[in-house]
């Protein structure tokens, strides 16, 4: 489980996060939802330690991370897998080398074991025959899947996904969403997904935290999000015609 307590962050006097607190449960897909520019990605970066918050703290299974020593931070980070918005695959390495990278650098696993693990993870994300392909030779959806394989190859306890289906077609988006949910449940990972995609919310939103202008306005799940009385959330959820239609029907 990950807990965040009173996270504040400003850039050049502009407040981006205003005292965000919450819990992300193990084995659940936890969503941070909000419109563009509401501070979702900044919050995610504060949680993984890429940005130091001005105030507040993050706890990984009761281990204080934000103000931890370098060694403890490294220890926690080695339990983290992250899927970036643009996949962040290493251009100079092929698919197999990308997925094997955390094992190469962070473990002393023998080569044949590493190879087995890589093949297992690639099979798990449905990319058995792409080992030797370079990132430039595969599609956006495949890159995301390679990113997921790389994130879970080291048996991560925590999985973070920054807008996992941005730039993908609806079918591939659903496939990526389902893959994240399956992996989360299968390996009992604590997964945090940043998204502004309502399809993702309805598909995989076990726990949802809604941000608006740096404030947490609502918390719930994909069952009760459509019954919220928070105006900003309703404006966001029912921004498109289809969702408005569903509301009118219900």
């Amino acid at each position: 489980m990950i807990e965040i307590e009173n996270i504040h962050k400003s850039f050049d006097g502009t407040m981006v996060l205003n005292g965000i607190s919450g819990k992300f449960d193990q084995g659940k897909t936890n969503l941070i939802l909000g419109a563009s520019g509401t501070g979702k990605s900044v919050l995610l970066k504060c949680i993984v330690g890429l940005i130091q918050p001005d105030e507040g703290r993050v706890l990984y299974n009761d281990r204080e991370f934000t103000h931890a020593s370098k060694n403890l931070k490294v220890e926690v980070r080695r339990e983290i897998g992250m899927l970036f918005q643009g996949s962040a695959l290493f251009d100079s390495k092929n698919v197999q080398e990308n997925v094997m990278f955390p094992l190469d650098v962070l473990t002393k696993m023998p080569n044949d074991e590493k190879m087995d693990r890589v093949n297992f993870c690639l099979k798990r994300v449905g990319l058995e025959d792409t080992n030797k392909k370079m990132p430039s030779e595969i599609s956006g959806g495949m890159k995301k899947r390679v990113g997921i394989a790389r994130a879970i190859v080291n048996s991560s306890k925590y999985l973070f996904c920054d807008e996992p289906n941005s730039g993908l077609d609806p079918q591939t988006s659903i496939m990526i969403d389902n893959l994240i949910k399956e992996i989360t449940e299968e390996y009992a990972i604590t997964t945090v997904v940043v998204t502004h995609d309502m399809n993702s919310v309805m598909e995989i939103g076990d726990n949802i935290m809604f941000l608006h202008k740096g404030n947490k306005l609502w918390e719930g799940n994909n069952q009760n999000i459509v019954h919220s009385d928070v105006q900003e959330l309703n404006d966001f959820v029912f921004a498109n015609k289809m969702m408005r239609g569903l509301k009118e029907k219900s």
Partner: protein
Amino acid sequence: MFIANIGKYFMFLGSLFTNRESFSTYFKLIVEECNLIGINSIVLVAIVSSFMGAVTTLQTAFNLVNPLIPDYVISLVVRDMTILELAPTIIAIIFAGKVGSSMAGGLGTMRITEQIDALEVMGINSSSYLVLPKVIASLLMYPLLVITAGVLSMVGGYLIGVMAGIISPTDYIYGIRFDFNPFTVVFALIKSFVFAFLVSTISSFKGYYTSGGALEVGVASTQAVTTSVIAILFADYFLAQLLL
């Protein structure tokens, strides 16, 4: 701003040596970087240095019109200019243009595409993992490039001098060996280590702290070359003042 950047640069240098990965990880990366930095630069260095020696021979001969000055002075001038200045300094400027811009561009692209963040999230010290091998490979390969450039420059001078009938082969060899001070080679090698360190660290620093998009990567590459060249020229002056 300038002072703040200098401070940030020294902190960046410090970060290269903290939370390092295993030696075997670095060894593989250093070999890869040696190939990229050294082997891939040999052709350019060979072309530039051969022509540098050839042109120096022609121009020295053009200026030495007094019949009282023996011909071997031409190759003596070529030798000293090559070892003291042309091989370490001119090749350093070319090194900054080719290798420095590539380092800054590569790291800048990794930064804007979140590849550096990916390393950090994995618990890897990205500056040490990405930059230290480049610095070590530069320190290993650049002196070798300078030695290659020095030899090829004198060979270029010999070929053009002999073929154009400016100087006889015997006079050229005599001039190359005449009153040779081995310290000039030591001086050239000291300069090459300093220049390699400056180019690799400044270029990596510029690339590593790139923010924005493709435009900023281009700006970082340009700044890497400009700053490296200025640093080379200052270091050249101080080393000459200090050691000669």
